[in-house]
């Protein structure tokens, strides 16, 4: 399955996924937060796709929204796909995809810790990158500033 075939297959069979132009190399689709886990399950169990491998989850703070991007792959069919979820800037929260890919565990913990995005149905939401007594917010947020963190002047 080539990239174009995958794109047309997803557009015809997955109405919940919307194609996004901003993905430059691999396909990038946007899904609503409520439908995330269902869609992921469907993508994993689809015999034609078999997206059984979760490579990475990255959190993004765009200052207007929070994003979580799931980089998934299919090992048997050699496919790649990015799935993006757009979350509101106030009280962002999302369901865990741990039930679909157990690998999500630590990635979601990291997003919860560094971005402050609430993860529902996660079995072990505890601190692990920051110190145990950390009380200075979520450092990967764009508005987070540390006293000794020097920003270069924007050109």
């Amino acid at each position, binding site marked *: 399955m080539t990239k174009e075939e995958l794109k047309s297959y997803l557009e015809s069979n997955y109405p919940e996924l919307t194609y996004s132009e901003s993905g430059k190399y691999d396909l990038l689709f946007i899904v609503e937060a409520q439908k995330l886990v269902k869609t992921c399950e469907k993508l994993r169990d689809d015999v034609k796709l078999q997206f059984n491998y979760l*490579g*990475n989850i990255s959190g993004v703070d765009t200052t207007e929204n929070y994003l979580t991007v799931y980089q998934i792959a299919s090992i048997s069919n050699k496919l790649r796909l990015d799935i993006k979820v757009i979350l509101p800037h106030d009280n962002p929260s999302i369901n865990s995809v741990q039930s679909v890919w157990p690998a999500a565990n630590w990635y979601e913990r990291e997003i919860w810790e560094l971005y402050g995005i609430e993860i529902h149905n996660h079995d072990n939401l505890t601190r692990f990158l*920051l110190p145990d007594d950390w009380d200075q917010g979520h450092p990967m947020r764009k508005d987070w500033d540390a006293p000794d963190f020097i920003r270069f002047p924007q050109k």
Partner: protein
Amino acid sequence: MAELRTEEFQVNMGPHHPSTHGVCRLLLTLDGEKIIKVEPYIGYLHRAIEKICENRTYPMCIPILDRFEYVTAMSCNYVFSLAAERLAEIEVPERAEYLRVIMLELNRIASHMIFFGTTVMDIGALTPFLYALREREMIMDLFEMTCGQRLTYNYIRIGGVSRDIPKEFIPKCRETIKTIDEKIEEYKRLLNGNPIWKARTIGIGKLSPELAIAYGASGPILRASGVEYDLRRDDPYSIYDRFDYKIPTYQNGDVYDRYMVRLDEMQESCKIVAQALDGLPEGDIRAKVKPNFKPPEGEVYTRIENSRGEMGVHLISDGTNKPFRLKARGGSFAHLQLLPEISKGCLIADLVAIFASFDVILPEVDR
């Protein structure tokens, strides 16, 4: 007769422990020597690389990413440069692609040498560590000859490589890979017949392919479990499709297979380097890239086959000269979260062997 009562107790393995390969804390719950539970605690090496990169221009990110996974700094350079090139759609000159492949494969050998040495040392034989480092030294010399650095290279840049190889590089490189190929045979003779080595590695830390895929294991660990998946072939990048090499795969997924996969991979890398040296064309080593590099808006996730599995960079550009968001993904992160799953019920000595066979490197986990 009263029944004997046993009590579980907890041991902190690390942060400073000889076999955690850096500063990782494993909280072990033990019943005698048997492990009931392992909880990895990470973050001791957290240097906020991702946050720092958001505040640096694109070329300035490369030396910072060198520290992301310093044992294979070439891969870190490469995966970031590749992401930037895919964003800006830069065509890389032929010679630069060949040089990149040579460096990446040499670095893969150097990294697997470290794996070989430390794993064997963790299982108790101290001598092979020094043998492995002796061979790694030859590769380090080649890197030093090329870019002046031995660990953090800053060699692969956006659009090409930083400088051309010197004249003496090619004969010395040929000699090096020939020696290494012979030495790997020697390592195999040294250990593979040793009954103690076999008893310590075969059948230890078995990882089924289903579990490996579900937990996002990649690279040699996935291949040792019988899944033939190599990003060099299955998600092609650079010019790997021009070379003839095998993808070593083993079926049992135990410590021994993970060790054998890596030894075989080193020999395959030697083959790739030899072919790349043969086919090395003349020409430019760098595409024309503006010093104030500004890729267009967009996002890309690039992944390459590193010696520790899939290494990826998720790069989001907002059109300025600094990355809007850079997320670095290392193979060790996924492998470390797999550790508690497969080390239940084994002994402390097995845990050490499994940890070593995963070849976890902590700066890659903590970033």
